[in-house]
């Protein structure tokens, strides 16, 4: 291969690499925060999280035992968490407040007390 052609190819590769780095950086800068929440009869762990109003987040849900629900009407969350699977739920709260989020998939004797708090601050 002629030196000039090689130079052009190497330059192109360098440009592509730099562009990739820039794009990756931008994506990671805008990537929403990921919060892992584990359901296990009859509690969510953690049982309290704090979000900022307007902040997009990913709630990464998983179950360590049986099928659970994850429900909060005002945040438009209505999910089913099946054991062995991970479920990502995108949430961007638009109103500050305290939201009690419940398991709404009957999971056993203390199902009625399985909940957690999502606090949304200004």
């Amino acid at each position, binding site marked *: 291969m002629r030196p000039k052609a090689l130079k052009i190819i190497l330059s192109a590769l360098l440009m592509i690499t730099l562009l990739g780095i820039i794009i990756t950086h931008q994506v990671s800068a805008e990537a929403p925060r990921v919060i892992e929440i584990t359901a296990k009869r009859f509690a969510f762990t953690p049982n309290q999280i704090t979000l900022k109003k307007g902040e997009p987040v990913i709630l990464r849900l998983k179950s360590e035992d049986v099928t659970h*629900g994850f429900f909060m009407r005002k945040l438009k969350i209505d999910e089913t968490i099946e054991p062995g699977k991970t479920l990502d739920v995108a949430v961007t709260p638009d109103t500050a407040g305290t939201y009690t989020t419940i398991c*709404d*998939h009957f999971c*056993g*004797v203390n199902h*009625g007390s399985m909940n957690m708090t999502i606090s949304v601050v200004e």
Partner: protein
Amino acid sequence: MKEVDRRRFMKIAGSSLGIGVLYSAMPSARAKGEAGAFFGELGKKNGEAVTPFTFLQLSDAHVGFDGPPDPLGTKAFERAVEMVNALPQRPDLVLFTGDLTHDTEDKDTHANRMRRFLEISKRMNVPLVKYVPGEHDAGLDAGQMYREFLGESYYSFDHRGVHFIALDNVSRAKPEVGPDQLAWLKKDLARFDKSAPIIVFTHRPLFDLKPEWEWFTSDGDDVMNVLAPYQNVTVLYGHIHRDDEHAVDHVHHYAARSLIFAFPDPEKTAAKKPFPFDKDAPFKNLGIRLVHENFAGKPLVNTVSVQDVELTTREFMGINGINQILRNPSL
């Protein structure tokens, strides 16, 4: 026929203790003049005229529950049955709106609880008892055991000109009736005139009473939309362990008290915690609601009145009484 007459003709009356609610469908059958003509026309349209009768709603016995907060097991349920049998007027039927038993993952134990529930329930001296499941009966096995004991979990029947509809909003584990049942409901209602008197009974509320306490049905709006064209609809439910009345559009929704323990008013307390057990008043808040409607054929008049009576405690008063109760085994 006047619109309001159609909507408010049902007389509803309740009686005593944790037994829930005693209702009377009393459309002033003896009424003369305008009201009499109304019921005559209603009877022609719906195939059978509504004639006066009385029925009861019981709810949430949770047979097998051993507290806290309530260590009395089936005592309130059994007391309720005694009081039903002592009513001066024998009710035509009893509707039991779910949570007949408390759940357990041991199938044999759950079956024993169901047998125990039925043994007590069958002591009631009433001609007909109808049931729907609660999530504690049907949530863990999609209603399989419930159906083995009591048959289908949703169905309908007619009684003295009133169409009763049993809806199951617990067997899918989530609080919902689901598309199959909705399709069935539409088909079931199709033969009725829009003026037909309809009583729906189910476990969970069909509206958003308190979603963060799981006091809702996620597709309750779909159910109510199917019912919306019908002008005489009443919904009876349990689940919330307290008496409650809500009017949503032209439909009145009534919750019965439980037979095990009571929840407070969600508007006055943040946490979902039952009232603590009071040994001096073991059946406190396990009352029955008397509801009367004094229909007189007048349009645009709310003639419903409510009377709540707490479960009498009689022999269960005092420390000795409580100890006596506690010695009795429960499932």
